[in-house]
């Protein structure tokens, strides 16, 4: 089942002589439960693509269907709900809310939805993330790896249709990077979570099911990885 369909997506920055085409008429689709990585050199348009799919940036042209709904037609408040419930972003620099502790950061999308959190699910998730004794800690009391795990936890707690991870290991050492990727893989395998991962590291990309390669805003390669 297609969870994501991108058609003729273009993003142009600036105008006239100073314009830059970050994405040039790209089209692709993603099935539910896929673990897709997007690789390319700096300036290839990877992050731009992710930001557009995450609803925090608008395309210049093209359509994006998520769960058969065109997100280009959504209003600002509908987009906010889309970001909260459908597509969750994980950033390179974690982007945790510094005044909220670990528990509050993880629960944030649920709280923004005015829902009562599932305490059992929260506990499991925190346990899975290895943050049992850090529940009440603030982000500035955590290491980089721990912070990224909180960011992932926030993402997964919301139970979105798609997780969009923009260089989640870009700021981490090898050990933590591996831990993060393992976590994502585990979630993908266990819960059929659809994940789109942007990375410049080919080794990380090879751990995913499918690799989309971008160059100068165009998809130059789309290959499926077969793992035993």
């Amino acid at each position, binding site marked *: 089942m297609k969870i994501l369909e991108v058609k003729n997506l273009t993003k142009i920055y600036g105008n006239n002589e100073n314009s830059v085409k970050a994405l040039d008429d790209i089209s692709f689709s993603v099935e539910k439960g896929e673990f897709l990585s997007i690789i390319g050199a700096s300036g290839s348009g990877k992050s731009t693509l992710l930001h557009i799919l995450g609803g925090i940036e608008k395309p210049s042209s093209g359509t994006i269907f998520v769960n058969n709904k065109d997100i280009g037609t959504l209003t600002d408040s509908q987009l*906010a*709900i889309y970001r909260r419930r459908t597509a969750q972003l994980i950033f390179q620099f974690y982007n945790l809310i510094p005044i909220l502790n670990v528990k509050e950061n993880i629960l944030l999308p649920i709280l923004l939805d005015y829902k009562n959190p599932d305490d059992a699910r929260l506990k499991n998730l925190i346990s899975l993330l290895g943050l049992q004794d850090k529940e009440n800690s603030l982000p500035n009391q955590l290491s980089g790896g721990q912070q990224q795990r909180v960011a992932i936890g926030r993402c997964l707690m919301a139970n979105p249709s798609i997780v969009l991870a923009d260089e989640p290991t870009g700021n981490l050492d090898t050990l933590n990077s591996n831990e993060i990727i393992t976590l994502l893989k585990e979630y993908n395998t266990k819960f059929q979570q659809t994940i789109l991962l942007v990375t410049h590291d080919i080794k990380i990309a090879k751990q995913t099911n499918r690799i989309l390669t971008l160059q100068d805003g165009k998809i130059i390669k789309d290959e499926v990885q077969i793992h035993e």
Partner: protein
Amino acid sequence: MNNLLKLATKELKSNKKMVFSILLSIILVSILINSITTLALSYQDYVVNLCRNKGNWEAQFIQIPYDKLTVLESDERIKEISLIEDLGIFSYNDNSQELLHIKAYDSNTMKNMPILLKEGNLPQSSNEILVNESTLLQIDDSISILLDEKEYVFHVTGILESTDFDEFNTKTFVKTNGAITYLNKDSLTPNSYLTASIVCQDISQIYDCTNDIQSQLNSLNSTPQILYNTELLSYAGNAKSDSTFQTNLILTVSVFIGIVSVASISLIYTIFHIFTQERKRYIAKLSSVGATKKQIAMIYFFEIIILTCIAIPVGILLSFGLVSLLLHVFDNLFTLIQSNISTTLIQNSISLQMVFSWYSIIFSILLIVIIVFFSVLFPIIQISKVSILNTLRENTYYKVTKHFTQVPKWLSKLFKIEGILAYKNMKRKKSHYITMVMSLTISIILFISIYGYIYNLSNYNQYEQHNYNYTLNLADYSPEHKAQEELIEIKKVLQNSGFIEEIHSYANLNPLYLVLDNSKLNDMLKFVDSKMNLLNNSFNKVNEHTSQLSCLVTTLDDATYQDYLSQIDSSLSLSNNECILINYSNAQNKYYDSVCLTNYQIGENLILNTQDINDEKNQEVLDNLSSLVGDSNRQIENKQISLSIKAITGRVPTCLPSFTLTDIYLIVNKDTFSQLFLETVGAEFSDFTNFYIQTSKPNELDELVYSLKAKYENAPIVIESSNLSASQQIEKNEILIKEILLYSFLVFIFVLTIITVLNIVFSSLSMRKTEFAELKAIGMSNRQMNKILFLEGLFYGTISLIIGIFISIGILYFLYHTMINTQVYRFSIDLISIFISIILIYAVIFISILYANKKLYKEDIATIIKTNIT
């Protein structure tokens, strides 16, 4: 050092917005502080000039022999000497009913003492004279008097409205009119006794000067009495005089300057703190290449010195402009009224002028420098100690500390995630939180305190105002009351004129005296003990256990009498020898508490004496006056009068002076009054002579009265009037001026608050741009973000209001105790001021948030996040 200065200047040029904010703040502070000191000096100068207008003298030597005058004339400290010779009291033109009290003024006295010349010219020689208009003499008339068995003839050159030595003796019914002639020094002998009034070159030297002169005179066997113009000297701030005015002025100025200083430190600290924090990374980079803490601190000090050197002169010049403008407005306000003032009111012919001294300017500059220094000291110390690595790594402005506050459960339940975020945002940085709360709290305190003070002052003063604005005295002084028809005619004309809205009349007997045991004196005794400076002559402690009160037995005209009785009790009526005792100094009402005077009960008898216990002194005066009118051997006889108390009340009849603390009013019916009048005065009470009028056309009424005076000038009747409307208007204007000044001050403080709040909100939102973008990326909607900002504003406003209102009430109570007669005026709080302050504070906060929000959040989420990453 030069390089640091160059760096400082470059930095200032590249941060124009922030520099402008700091400059504006220092300029505002300079304007406020210098305005306060300048206004205080100008006001003091104004009241001193008002006093001088009533009589330009600082000390008087009474009865100094002419030959000893050289002692004064040779003293270089004395700027001017004015001489008066009291020639004495004389009958004139064989007139037995009136006497003339003649004083001779020299040219300096003519200039310095107030002479209410109605028409004509001042006397230029010793045979010219000014007389009181009630003598009914005209210009060019002659007066002959006998002085030392010699006849002197004076030629009338001018008519006076009155003098301050006119007298009417209530025991002999003899009127003494003041008259002024010219003092011819050639006619003086060494034994001529004069009153010498002096003005010093420097008013602060008056006591030293007079003491020295007194010593010299004592050595010459001359001991004249010295009087001081205590009112003028105290207003001028002379240290040895009553310092109440000076103390109050300094206290008021200090309070305002204190408030401004605190508000200023808060404002400048906030702006400068934001200024330094925004450049933290820059400072970290400087440190990383080798700049020491001292060098970094010096850069900031240079920056602030440059800004201060520009802002202070600009601020001080602007403050002079502002004060001039304010005083010009006030002066025009006075001029508008002066055009309607009768000539008897002279006190407002003084213009308001701006006055400043170099001392006040230097004081202002020093104070501003100190304020700026204290405001920037802490941020500079902080910034110079910045850790290079932490700063360069840190990508958020706010560093959340370990001990972060928990959110109250009720708050998170009520306001949900937005409330949690708002509350935590508010508390995340202590210095910002304190500054914001303090700025708002100070504004609230100032607003409620000043507004409330004006409210209390207006209500206090309203009670002081009478419910009449014109008085008239109409009397037939002919021995057999032959002028009754003329009086009736005059009253008809006045009543038919259409100028009179209400008219009341009352008549008093001469004061009667009640000797009573102190146990009968109630609160009044305690009140008098505690407020000795408010004693009037009517209260007299005879001995440890006995006191004497003066009682005013009063009757009212029929209409006023009936109205008064019905106000107390609809069924009340007074029989003969019964009275209503007004036993409270003020009727209890919304604003005033009352002081209960005596413990008398209804049904008790009051035994009143016609003779004052101090009558021995009075006898001497009476003997002197009696001999002048050829009626010797008048004796004061004591009679006792008994009145039964029918009712006790605090209510005062419409026309009686409302504010009396130690006089006892006894209201009787007309029959009782007539009987008592006959017993005490020895004559029949004919009719009311004093009328208290409420008129909407006081000037027209004035003209009518003057025309009646002219018409009946040959009749044996007295027509005297007093137009109070102008003086009442002046009192109202004085309050208006105070209100304008205080409200102007409030506006400035409000502007300071807005700037502070705007700066804090702007910087806070600016620094949290990324954070808000992250929240939006997670799924927070615009509506939710606005709710967070709204709740932050609500929390700040509510906390500030609770603290501010609480402190304001305390300050109001303190002001009430120091500045208003608290014995009678009840403390009250104006709820409107509290309501307005609530609206204003929330308005300031929300408008600042809206404005900052609109300015800052134009970019999309991704751009903000990317900017943060790069």
